[in-house]
């Protein structure tokens, strides 16, 4: 029994190490991300740190189309007055004389008087007063911004269609980020499948641990570091330990030989790599690369089915190959209908909702403990109090249920 469990542990440890390595690298990149400036945040004015929903400032952010557009067309200037700048970033000289002949203001050189000694003015006209609403100015600015963005968008369309390979080297970090996300994606999916397909509940619990660790990494991608910490502490720390404790106290049956286990781990590693690579190719490529990635994915899934038929029992491996195939199909479907999904789901949820995630806050204070604490203890304080009652009740219930009948009888009698 002891030797058996030791060999079993030897086969599961590399898998866990892979998961931990992926998590650590994701943590490192997520830490390094805010220092690169605001990675995504197509604000209407091109300024940084503007809260997302200002009425009247709804500009081109609502119409951010495909995935590369915000990065390519993000305006580079910041802090200076946007409307007075032309495309080159210099002051627009065409606007200056128009301001000088505005009604009611001195015309021409104000310091030099006219022929009659008074400053030269244009008599003010009724109905042409300057708009006192400052938002109108901002709207005008955002409209000119929108026109500029549209021009740039059409100019850059060709380079966008080239796909991930031809992009500049500064996008390399972003590509690594995407690759890490899809590695985590396929890690989570594969180990969820392991969780519900293993016969041994201990194996299921350990793969569930990998799922929770990967999910903590995904939370870091979503700017939720506090939730990632909670995930690690509560799930990976407490719930899994509870499960393993109960499994050990109940006793688990191990029916499968170690050789089969190694084969299946190998198989799952391959499926994991394939789905990850496929998802990455689908996401990064567009145009020709898109089609090529899709064809490669389908061929790989087909090869999996054939390989499973040749070497192993058909039923089990057909099932897993079908899962790979289905994952490829789902990813492809999402890619093909991304615009549709973004325009239906996104529009119904919030008329201004961008399909891309944008940076909720530039300084990274969006999902930290302070923000969550303010939300929990002010707006959701009733839920918090109810939760404390629930936890108390569950503690009492667990103790009462677990206490054996003999003890209860001895105490009552």
């Amino acid at each position, binding site marked *: 029994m002891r030797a058996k469990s030791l060999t079993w542990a030897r086969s599961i440890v590399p898998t866990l190490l892979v998961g931990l390595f992926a998590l650590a690298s994701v943590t490192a990149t997520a830490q390094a991300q805010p220092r690169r400036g605001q990675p995504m945040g197509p604000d209407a004015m091109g300024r940084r740190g503007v809260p997302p*929903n200002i009425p009247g400032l709804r500009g081109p952010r609502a119409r951010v189309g495909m*995935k590369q557009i915000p990065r390519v067309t993000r305006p580079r200037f910041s802090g200076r007055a946007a409307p007075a700048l032309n495309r080159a970033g210099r002051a627009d000289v065409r606007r200056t004389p128009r301001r000088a002949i505005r009604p009611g203001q001195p015309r021409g050189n104000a310091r030099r008087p006219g022929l009659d000694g008074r400053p030269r003015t244009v008599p003010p006209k009724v109905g042409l007063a300057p708009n006192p609403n400052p938002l109108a100015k901002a709207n005008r600015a955002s409209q000119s911004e929108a026109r500029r963005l549209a021009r740039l968008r059409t100019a850059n369309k060709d380079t966008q269609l080239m796909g991930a390979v031809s992009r500049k080297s500064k996008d390399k970090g972003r590509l690594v*980020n995407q690759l890490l996300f899809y590695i985590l994606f396929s890690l989570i999916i594969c180990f*969820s499948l392991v969780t519900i397909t293993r016969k041994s509940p201990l194996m299921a619990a350990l793969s569930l641990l990998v799922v929770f660790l990967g999910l903590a990494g995904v939370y870091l991608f979503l700017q939720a570091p506090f*939730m990632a910490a909670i995930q690690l502490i509560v799930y990976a720390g407490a719930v899994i330990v*509870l499960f393993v404790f109960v499994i050990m106290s109940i006793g688990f049956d191990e029916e499968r030989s170690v050789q089969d286990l190694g084969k299946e781990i190998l198989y799952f590693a391959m499926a994991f790599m394939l789905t990850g690579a496929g998802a990455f190719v689908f996401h990064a490529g567009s145009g020709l690369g898109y089609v090529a990635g899709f064809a490669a994915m389908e061929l790989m899934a087909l090869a999996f089915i054939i390989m499973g038929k040749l070497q192993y029992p058909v039923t089990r491996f057909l099932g897993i190959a079908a899962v790979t195939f289905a994952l490829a199909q789902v990813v492809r479907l999402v890619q093909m209908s991304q615009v549709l999904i973004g325009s239906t789901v996104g529009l119904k*949820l919030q008329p201004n909702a961008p399909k891309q995630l944008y940076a909720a806050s530039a300084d990274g204070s969006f999902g930290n403990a302070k*923000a969550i604490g303010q939300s929990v203890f002010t*707006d959701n304080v009733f839920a918090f109090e109810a939760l404390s009652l629930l936890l108390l009740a569950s503690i009492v219930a667990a103790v009462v*249920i677990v206490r054996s009948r003999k003890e209860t009888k001895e105490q009552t009698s």
Partner: protein
Amino acid sequence: MISSVHFLLLSALMFMIGAAGVLLRRNILVVLMSIELMLNGANLALITFSRIQANTHGQSLAFIVVAIAAAEAAVGLAIVVAIFRGRRTTNVDDLDLMKN
């Protein structure tokens, strides 16, 4: 950057796998783990929408869901231990205490 649709896809897949585990498995421990999977998928969707809307309330709701999941796991495992003491089984099909 990564589209939010992919986070939602991940959460939907996790939820589906968890639901399949609840429906297909007979071991009550694995059923409890599948419930944890489903709760985690729902949590991921909550946090994703919180990020899309730039609103912290989704994350605090996910926090509450985590606490509820922990309480559920504690009580569920206590029930499993109590049942296993009496019946020596973890099969869901054998748990027909209420039928007699």
